[in-house]
């Protein structure tokens, strides 16, 4: 049984605002059909507010509440939509909000009333990054060239979510086609960080991270080519999971760099990220690069933290990557990560520093491979079959003008770089060499993971920075990807969990801890991450933007 169903110790964790019912307060270690715990019984056992409650699985809580009929799906959805409506003008996380959410909730209520089976994600509002295709909503990839484009099909990940009862609440903002680390290079809007609206949410999945952080939706899908799930998770104080390459189908994900792209998950707890991963994983006959590896039920393997067991991670070998807590990394970030390492030690882990000599090679190799593949993948946006088409006299101008008008400057820069790197006479010096570096990086990770169960590092060398701060300094922005790109080059899974704060903004800025494991060992990351978050005391990762909302709900 999931530990996340343990009796809450405080009300402050409950993100939902329900004027009539406080359904989410009802959590129980008993079976789902057990008597609901009442509001009164919870308040009675509340403990001093200085101690905060560890993150709960919102997905399991919602399921419990719906099935035990403490709340209707319509009420649940309405509350999220209300918060979305209130916060969206400041955050701008969504490019499109579905207009069928309430109808879908209503359908779900009918099913529940008829005692019909409902899927494990029933009533769960999912935000979907806009480079992931959805059949009934626009999917622009954040690009002007696909403005108004509606795909004819759902991405496999989206299809699976829908089949399990999840409700897609809308399409989240991103850097155009996933190219960027701030979400500022979206063609349509700039998303703000819920912790400090003058700062970026990170990127490229900034909209998905901000939406979960501000509880505009329960969980969300992002994509991670060089850190695009993990870095915004760190900036926004949410859990971000980058699965092993091949774990989740890319069918329906607009390709940026095919050999690096993966669809990843955001949640406000490790359990939610794990449940979402389980929902979308598995071999797909529409993606030849998906693996036939078994998909374990990640969430059911999350063990309850028992106060009687003081060292739940006893014997786990943890390697702190030395190069990631070195020069060039924000000192506040380093000390937060070191504190997290100490916390792991307290849990029984054996923490040592490991060096990955090839670490610094990752960034240039990544940018060559990613831009090369993107120059090819973006060739299809030519204005011929879909998307914005320029009005011109001849074919060359049709291509030129459609692409010149349709693409933003970051995309153009990467397409140009990639075209150059693949050109005759340069291929060996750039692309081929970058692939050789990739092999070296893969091998060095393998060696480090032979010695350690997991590796840890910051998810980003800095906390969220100001909007516009790095806009004219692309190299500084690219350098920010140093913590994450190596993992993509090696195809490994990584989990980012909020582990502390540094100064900045009205309430501090969250810092994420990145944990890396061997391929297809997401289960281990989730187990460790779950225990870590359940035992991390005195931190509350609810952004100030909605803190009032949550306090009101008390």
């Amino acid at each position, binding site marked *: 049984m999931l530990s996340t169903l343990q009796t809450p110790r405080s009300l402050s964790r409950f993100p939902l605002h329900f004027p009539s019912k406080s359904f989410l307060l009802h959590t129980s270690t008993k079976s789902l059909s057990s008597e609901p715990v009442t509001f009164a019984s919870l308040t009675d056992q509340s403990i001093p507010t200085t101690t905060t409650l560890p993150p709960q699985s919102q997905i399991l809580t919602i399921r419990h509440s719906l099935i035990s009929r403490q709340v209707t799906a319509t009420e649940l959805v309405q509350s999220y939509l209300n918060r979305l409506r209130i916060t969206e003008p400041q955050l701008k996380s969504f490019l499109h909000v579905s207009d069928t959410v309430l109808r879908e909730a209503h359908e779900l209520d009918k099913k529940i009333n008829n005692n019909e089976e409902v899927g494990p994600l029933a009533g769960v509002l999912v935000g979907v990054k806009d480079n992931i295709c959805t059949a009934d909503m626009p*999917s622009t990839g954040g690009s002007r060239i696909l403005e108004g484009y509606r795909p004819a099909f759902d991405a496999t990940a989206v299809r699976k979510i829908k089949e399990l009862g999840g409700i897609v609440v809308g399409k989240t903002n991103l850097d155009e086609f996933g190219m960027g680390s701030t979400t500022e290079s979206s063609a349509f809007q700039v998303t703000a960080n819920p912790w400090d609206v003058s700062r970026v949410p990170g990127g490229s999945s900034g909209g998905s991270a901000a939406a979960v952080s501000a509880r505009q939706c329960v969980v969300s899908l992002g994509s991670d080519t060089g850190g695009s799930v993990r870095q915004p998770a760190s900036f926004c104080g949410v859990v971000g999971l980058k699965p092993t390459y091949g774990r989740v189908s890319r069918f329906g994900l607009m390709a940026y760099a095919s050999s690096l792209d993966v669809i990843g998950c955001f949640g406000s707890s490790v359990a939610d990220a794990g449940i979402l991963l389980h929902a979308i994983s598995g071999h797909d006959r*529409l993606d030849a690069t998906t693996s036939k590896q078994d998909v374990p039920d990640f969430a059911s393997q999350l063990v309850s933290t028992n106060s009687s067991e003081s060292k739940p991670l006893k014997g786990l070998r943890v390697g702190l990557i030395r190069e990631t807590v070195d020069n060039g990394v924000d000192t506040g970030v380093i000390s937060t990560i070191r504190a997290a390492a100490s916390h792991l030690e307290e849990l029984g882990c054996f923490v040592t520093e490991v060096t990955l000599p090839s670490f610094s090679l990752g960034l240039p190799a990544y940018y060559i491979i990613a831009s090369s593949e993107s120059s090819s993948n973006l060739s299809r946006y030519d204005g011929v*079959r879909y998307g914005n088409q320029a009005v011109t006299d001849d074919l*060359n101008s049709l291509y030129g003008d459609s692409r010149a008008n349709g693409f933003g400057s970051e995309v153009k820069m990467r397409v140009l770089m990639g075209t150059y790197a*693949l050109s005759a006479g340069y291929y060996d010096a750039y692309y081929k060499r970058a692939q050789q570096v990739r092999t070296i990086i893969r091998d060095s990770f393998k060696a480090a993971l032979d010695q350690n169960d997991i590796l840890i590092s910051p998810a980003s060398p800095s906390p969220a920075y100001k909007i516009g701060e790095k806009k004219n300094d692309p190299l500084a922005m690219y350098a920010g990807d140093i913590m994450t790109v190596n993992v993509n080059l090696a195809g490994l899974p990584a989990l980012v969990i909020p582990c502390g704060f540094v100064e900045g903004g009205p309430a501090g800025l969250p810092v994420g801890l990145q944990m890396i494991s061997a391929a297809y060992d997401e289960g281990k990351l989730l187990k460790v991450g779950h225990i870590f978050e359940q035992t991390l005391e005195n931190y509350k990762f609810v952004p100030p933007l909605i803190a009032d909302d949550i306090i009101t709900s008390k």
Partner: protein
Amino acid sequence: MASTIFRNFQAHPFLLCPTTALFGRRSRVLYCTMRNPESQTATREKQQPQIKVSPHTQNNRLDKFSKDYDAVIGIETHVQLSTLTKAFCSCPYDYGSPPNTNVCPICMGLPGALPVLNSKVIEFAVKLGLALNCKLSLDSKFDRKQYFYPDLPKGYQISQFDVPIASGGYIDLDLPVEFGGGHRRFGITRVHMEEDAGKLLHSENGSYSQEIALPLHFAVDLNRAGVPLLEIVSEPEMRTGIEAAEYAAELQRLVRYLGVSNGNMQEGSLRCDVNVSVRPLGQLQFGTKVEIKNLNSFSSVSRAIDFEISRQVQLLSQGQGDRILQETRQWEEGAQKTVTMRKKEGLADYRYFPEPDLPAVSLREDVLFLANDIYVANFFDATIAKGADVKLATNWIMSDIAAFMKNEKLAISEVKLTPQELAELIACIKGGTISGKIGKQILFELLAKGGTVKGLIKEKDLVQIVDPVEIEKMVDKVLAENPKQLEQYRSGKTKLQGYFAGQIMKVSKGKANPGLLNKILLEKLNANS
């Protein structure tokens, strides 16, 4: 599936009418109702390739100079595979379907769509590779070949670059005696897998050409996009149009025989692009290479090459060699000439790189066809045990026998052929007792009815005549019976050699060794002149 998606698309006003993507400056009304003109006129070619070229049509001007020049011809052949579905999606391909009805998100290159390889493509490539005596790459891969063109939905073609699935083979053929006869072996540089592009359709106010400066009113039909192709590149070893046409005809026969393609040239299932260059005799360096496209029949292959050779020879002999440009020329059937289609401006840079959406191609499983089917493996082992050449036995079993079993829906245990007789057959061909062509005839007898190789050869009197004395008798007989033609030949009409050869072959009931026949014939013809 395709039609469902087709409807889905129409339901979405945001899509720029993908039923037919059409460029239009003013008009964005894009649905193309035009029938493909080829679907109405296409006639099936005869099952057996036939080259309808008279041996007497080559012009005299060419004769005058050609003995001072040497033509070098290489052919790139694209064979469209007759798989049930396209190479990377589940769309069928039906030639002549209305435009954009056999399409889906994958072959239209829609955002987020990914290719998944149809394993039949590999199977067919392996079959043809083996039949062409190629070496197979056990570890191969796909690459992206990148260029922009409206008929190329993804902006790149999935192809193979540096590791083709098969390479270093050859094809054996016997030239028809009326063209001088003789055995030829042409090298096969490589065979690789790739996907076809769509087609540009004409519109009323614009003709279509491959030039990049297209008129703006034209439509793209993506039915053909993603159909699997094998590209077969020959060594530049042919010297005449006839040799090239015979090479193409032999390829057609082969792909039909193997069941990998219908080989229909008019429908474009078999397309030949020919490279022709000419150099003075004795010069080692190749002349400037000209590519010829739009060759829709074997006779056009032959005539276009001979025209092009004579054009180049004439320019060279007039000291205007610099007017031979590296370019692509188009064969105009009506005018019977080649005309400039586009000039090559340096080498195109296709920026090839390995296709990241597809795993590497490992042939181990496919090649293990022999080992996977235990009965086939036993049959193979037994054939080898009887002393048959391993490579030849592999080829026969993988291609001809496998094709027969498939067509007749028989298991190896049900065919009448025994390993003993297969080994015998291989030995007879290798030893020159019978020709390869006759060997295949015998094989089918053996597969269907059984019997022995020796028995069939004897019964049907199929032994190749390799005795020079016997051939000489036939030559003498034919020359004696045609005094008028002999006189014409000796007064300069040397083309008549083909005529004589044909008559002699007839007399021998097709059994005379073509090489010997021609050698003796030439000696006799030129002896008393």
